[in-house]
């Protein structure tokens, strides 16, 4: 130990490490470190410390800092150490500065010069350490200082240097994309580097570049595919194999890039199908790295233009992941499933039980991942189950970061898919109650607006029902101790606005509650302000209604307190309240009209009501107002500022050396060449008077010769650098293959799916508890499993009035949230025009639309309906269409579709059509089964253990 690499370690150092290792407690460790810091402080500033000692001190500093203590007193010594000539010492110096300094540290500027010098070194190892430092330390400001040298290093004979230079440029791109934007051709060129390591490194910057601008790199698809093919065929040196896999890290990077390039591009994707399929086959799923590549393949397949064969392989891989005993693989499986359901939603169903197992797993990571999946597959049919689960989990955790995230997801889902007002309000209450202060304040504002605006234009009763249910629930919740501030604000606002609106509660009851809130949360000014304003509203409504107002005694005392409050805001509100109470009914009504929070307030921007006053003043001799722009004699300030800015920007830092003073005697030596190499001693200014002048001349001229040689070398390198180069396309021909798509792909994948489902289910069937089945049914609600139930009399037992009620808010909520995800079926809106709908099935279900579409008597009047029917009639051969016609055809289809409809259909180009097709192709007796199924799910029928049909249906 410790002898390798010739490192010298003193006994002191070993003792330090040992004593830290033996420290029993954090306090003891801290004590040791602090005394070590004292020692180092003293020693390090001693003059004439030998280099080797110094190196050890710096390493000890690194150690101290690693343990979490401040070693900033020694930074400058580390910086100094980078100047050293010995590589070993220099390397330690660079290591220390890269560990100590962040890119915004003041000392960086001192290192830039050293880095510049080292990048020019003829020892490639020095260049390598300097490049390591460049990647960590160079910031946006200092990029220009090293950029030219790094570009030159791209042509360095050593592959290690080229590789690091590429990575440095990648880092620059991350820090400031504009700084390297002109160097893109260099990256493309390095892609063809002879060394696989350099090629692999080049993929990093290319990945970033492609992420930001896919279209400029479409020409590289062929090259990437051919590289990937070669890698998969083991054409790379054996050294790149990793656990019998050929260069898996490069494969993964390439698959990531292909996923970007093939996204939504049929032509590009077609080039990839063969190679991705090959990798699927070749991957060894018993090793971890094989699974890593497999996972990346799934990601790629779910991103590029869909290909049924590949989707099938992906689905197989996913089911293998999910069935694995390893938690890691399950996790990856859930993640992959979340990606794939975007393309083929039906795949989730086969794995429902596996998903539920993961959801109930004690492993938090897996659980969270599963929630992410559920979030992605939420529909209006399963939103209640999913959101309830999420809230339960949210309540159970302490991690604020994740709590915030899951709370915002709950809110988003609730806004998007809420089945009823009641449920929505209750859900929001729960979210606010348990994660209140973590929720974005905007959510609270949204909720207030939603309650104020109501849901239907013409349905006032529903709105007032919503409000009174909100008021009721809030009055109930107020009984609980310690509510979050945001939630209290909402409560105060709603109580003020609607507390007395339905006449159920008296003004004194509501005001009493509000006073309680203000008292109980007396250190929260915002809540108090909300409460005072709410009080004012209640009193104003009372006065306007002609009732006598008599203020509660606690309210009086509260007002007295607020009138003398330190907060001017509270004071003002209290004074306003006092003033309003003193006014008569008519005045109060115009100040505080009832239920007018959504009404626009008209603002007279021209201030025309002041005209009379102005006229009067002018007549009295006042100066008329001159707009700012017409005033003369004033400098144009904005112009001035612009100039200032311009000047500032041109005053950047200069990193190039200052020019040397012009040589008068030695005119032969070009000054630039003197500055370019450190090896050339800068000649002293030579004075003609001095006698040894003649002797120095020869040496100087030989210097000049050497630098000229160097110069020529530089010139050559530059020529290489400038050369424009395009990736060779010669290799491409062999790889571009047409994918053959069977006509019966749809059937094929379906049978495959059912087969896997079968095996999984039969394996699990024995141990599945009824609760799980129930959960599965409510989450996944497969279209074919509960037919029996739906056929029975539920249809008639459900009061139709409820349907109308729940339907109306739903659609208006969509409008309110102005968000329609592709999963959501827009024609909910369209159902207004179909009176037959209500009697056949509830309107909430997304499948509903399809029913309507398939109905032979569908009204032609609805534009959406019309166009969608067209899409569906095409459905039998639409898969063939996708695969056989050029990409344009598909887009045209959906364009027509969206063009015809004015509904939210427009923002779901493509997505819906494929989904509809997928759904329509599922069952021969489509209309019936969909209708039944829709009904069943709306009724909330959850198959229990008494329903043996669940598995019968699943098994087909």
């Amino acid at each position, binding site marked *: *130990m*410790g002898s*390798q*690499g*010739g*490192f010298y*370690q003193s006994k002191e150092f070993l003792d330090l490490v040992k004593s830290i*290792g033996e420290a029993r407690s954090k306090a003891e460790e801290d004590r040791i470190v602090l005394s070590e810091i004292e020692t180092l402080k003293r020693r390090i500033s001693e003059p004439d410390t030998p280099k080797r000692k110094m190196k050890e001190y710096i390493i000890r500093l*690194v*150690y101290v*800092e*690693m343990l*979490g203590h401040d070693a900033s007193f020694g930074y400058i010594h580390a910086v100094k150490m980078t100047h050293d000539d*010995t*590589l070993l010492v220099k*390397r*330690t110096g660079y*290591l220390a500065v*890269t*560990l100590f300094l962040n*890119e915004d540290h003041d000392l960086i500027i001192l290192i830039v010069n050293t880095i510049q010098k080292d990048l020019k070194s003829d020892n*490639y*190892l020095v260049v390598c350490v300097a490049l390591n430092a460049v*990647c*960590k330390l160079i910031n946006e400001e200092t990029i220009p200082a090293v950029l030219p040298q790094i570009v030159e290093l791209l042509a360095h*004979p*050593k592959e*290690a240097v080229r590789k690091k230079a590429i*990575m*440095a440029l*990648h*880092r620059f791109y991350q820090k400031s994309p504009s700084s390297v934007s002109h160097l893109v051709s260099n990256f493309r060129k390095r892609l063809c580097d002879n060394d696989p*390591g350099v090629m692999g*490194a080049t993929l990093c910057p290319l990945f970033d570049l492609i992420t930001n601008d896919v279209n400029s790199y479409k020409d590289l698809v062929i090259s990437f595919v051919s590289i990937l093919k070669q890698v998969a065929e083991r054409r790379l*040196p054996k050294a*790149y194999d*990793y*656990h019998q896999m050929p260069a*898996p*890290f490069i494969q993964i990077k390439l698959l990531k890039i292909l996923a970007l390039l093939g996204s939504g591009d049929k032509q590009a994707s077609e080039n990839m199908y063969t190679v991705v399929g090959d990798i699927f086959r070749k991957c060894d799923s018993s090793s*971890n*790295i094989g*699974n*890593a590549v497999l996972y990346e393949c799934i*990601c790629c397949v779910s991103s590029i233009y869909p290909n049924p064969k590949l989707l099938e392989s992906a689905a197989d891989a996913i089911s293998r992941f999910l069935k694995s005993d390893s*938690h890691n693989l399950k*996790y990856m499986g859930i993640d992959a499933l979340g990606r794939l359901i975007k393309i083929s939603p039906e795949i989730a169903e086969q794995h429902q039980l596996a998903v539920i197992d993961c959801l109930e797993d*004690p*492993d*938090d*990571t897996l659980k969270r991942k599963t929630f992410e999946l559920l979030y992605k597959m939420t529909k209006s049919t399963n939103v209640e189950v999913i959101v309830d689960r999420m809230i339960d989990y949210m309540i159970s955790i302490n991690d604020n*970061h994740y709590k915030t*995230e899951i709370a915002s997801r709950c809110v988003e889902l609730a806004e998007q898919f809420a089945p009823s007002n009641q449920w929505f309000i209750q859900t929001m209450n729960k979210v606010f109650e348990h994660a209140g202060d973590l929720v974005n304040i905007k959510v609270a504002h949204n909720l207030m607006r939603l309650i104020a605006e109501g849901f239907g234009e013409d349905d006032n009763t529903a709105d007032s029902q919503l409000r009174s249910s909100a008021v009721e629930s809030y009055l109930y919740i107020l009984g609980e101790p310690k509510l979050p501030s945001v939630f209290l604000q909402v409560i105060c606002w709603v109580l003020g606005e609607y507390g007395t609106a339905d006449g159920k509660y008296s003004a004194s009851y509501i005001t009493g509650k509000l006073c309680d809130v203000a008292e109980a949360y007396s250190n929260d000014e915002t809540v108090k302000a909300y409460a005072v304003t709410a009080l004012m509203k209640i009193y104003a409504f009372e006065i306007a209604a002609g009732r006598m107002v008599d203020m509660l005694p606690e309210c009086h005392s509260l007002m007295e307190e607020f009138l003398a409050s330190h907060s001017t805001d509270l004071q003002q509100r209290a004074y306003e309240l006092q003033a309003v109470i003193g006014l008569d009914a008519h005045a109060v009504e115009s100040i505080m009209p009832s239920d007018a929070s959504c009404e626009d307030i008209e603002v007279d921007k021209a201030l025309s009501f002041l005209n009379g006053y102005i006229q009067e003043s002018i007549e009295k001799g006042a100066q008329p107002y001159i707009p700012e722009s017409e005033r003369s004699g004033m400098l144009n300030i904005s112009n001035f500022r612009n100039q200032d800015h311009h000047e500032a920007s041109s005053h950047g830092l200069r990193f190039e050396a200052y020019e040397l003073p012009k040589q008068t005697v030695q005119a032969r030596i070009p000054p630039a060449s003197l500055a370019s190499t450190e090896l050339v*001693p800068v000649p002293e200014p030579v004075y003609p008077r001095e006698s040894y002048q003649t002797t120095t001349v020869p*040496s100087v001229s*030989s*210097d000049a010769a*050497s630098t000229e*040689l*160097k110069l020529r070398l530089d010139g050559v390198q530059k020529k290489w650098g400038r050369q424009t180069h395009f990736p060779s396309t010669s290799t491409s021909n062999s790889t571009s293959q047409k994918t053959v798509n069977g006509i019966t792909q749809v059937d094929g994948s379906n049978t495959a799916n059912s087969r896997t489902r079968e095996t999984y289910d039969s394996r699990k069937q024995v141990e599945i508890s009824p609760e799980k089945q129930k959960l599965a049914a409510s989450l996944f609600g497969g279209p074919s499993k509960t037919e029996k139930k739906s056929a029975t009399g539920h249809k008639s037992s459900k009061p139709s009035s409820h349907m109308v009620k729940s339907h109306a808010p739903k659609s208006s909520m969509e409008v309110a949230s102005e968000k329609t995800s592709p999963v959501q079926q827009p024609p909910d809106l369209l159902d207004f025009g179909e009176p037959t709908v209500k009697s056949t099935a509830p309107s909430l279900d997304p499948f509903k639309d399809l029913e309507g579409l398939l109905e032979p008597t569908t009204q032609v009047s609805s534009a959406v309906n019309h166009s969608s029917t067209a899409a569906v009639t095409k459905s039998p051969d639409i898969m063939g269409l996708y695969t056989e016609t050029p990409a344009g055809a598909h887009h045209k289809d959906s364009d027509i579709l969206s063009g015809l409809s004015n509904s939210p259909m427009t923002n779901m180009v493509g997505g819906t059509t494929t989904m509809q097709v997928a759904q329509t192709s599922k069952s021969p007796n489509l209309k019936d089964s969909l209708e039944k199924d829709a009904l069943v799910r709306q009724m909330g029928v959850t198959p229990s253990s008494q329903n043996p049909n669940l598995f019968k249906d699943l098994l087909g």
Partner: protein
Amino acid sequence: MIHFVLLISRQGKVRLTKWYSAYSQKERTKVIRELSGLILTRGPKLCNFVEWRGLRVVYKRYASLYFCMCIDEDDNELEILEIIHHYVEVLDRYFGSVCELDLIYNFHKAYFILDELLIAGELQEPSKRTVARLVAAQDSLVETAKEQTSSITNIIAQAANTASL
């Protein structure tokens, strides 16, 4: 990209830290404390991944030492797991069946090796042999490592320089 690499012992002692994204000294201490609380308490059969502040931390335990890497949400966790293993294999080759003590006393070497493996938060070299060769070259004396294979002009330039000195 990898945001940072941590090596923590089972007792929560820090063995190595490398930060590829900017974290202040205060944040670093906090991150280490949070993560060791999160990771060291996890059971052996659970995932090797933890969600943490919107990022993922992939960890793997070797004997009494935890190797952790923090990555973005959309990175491939299994790949990172293998990068960790790759690093361990390289360390193993360098030290000759590495153990925690090697890393405790030669942490700077572990850093040098890491620098050849990862750069700017990305895997720079997937070949074990190349990494080993580079580290060995740096360890050996500087003079012998001087670039000899470069163009003949370089040699002439050097000759001229020495002559002039």
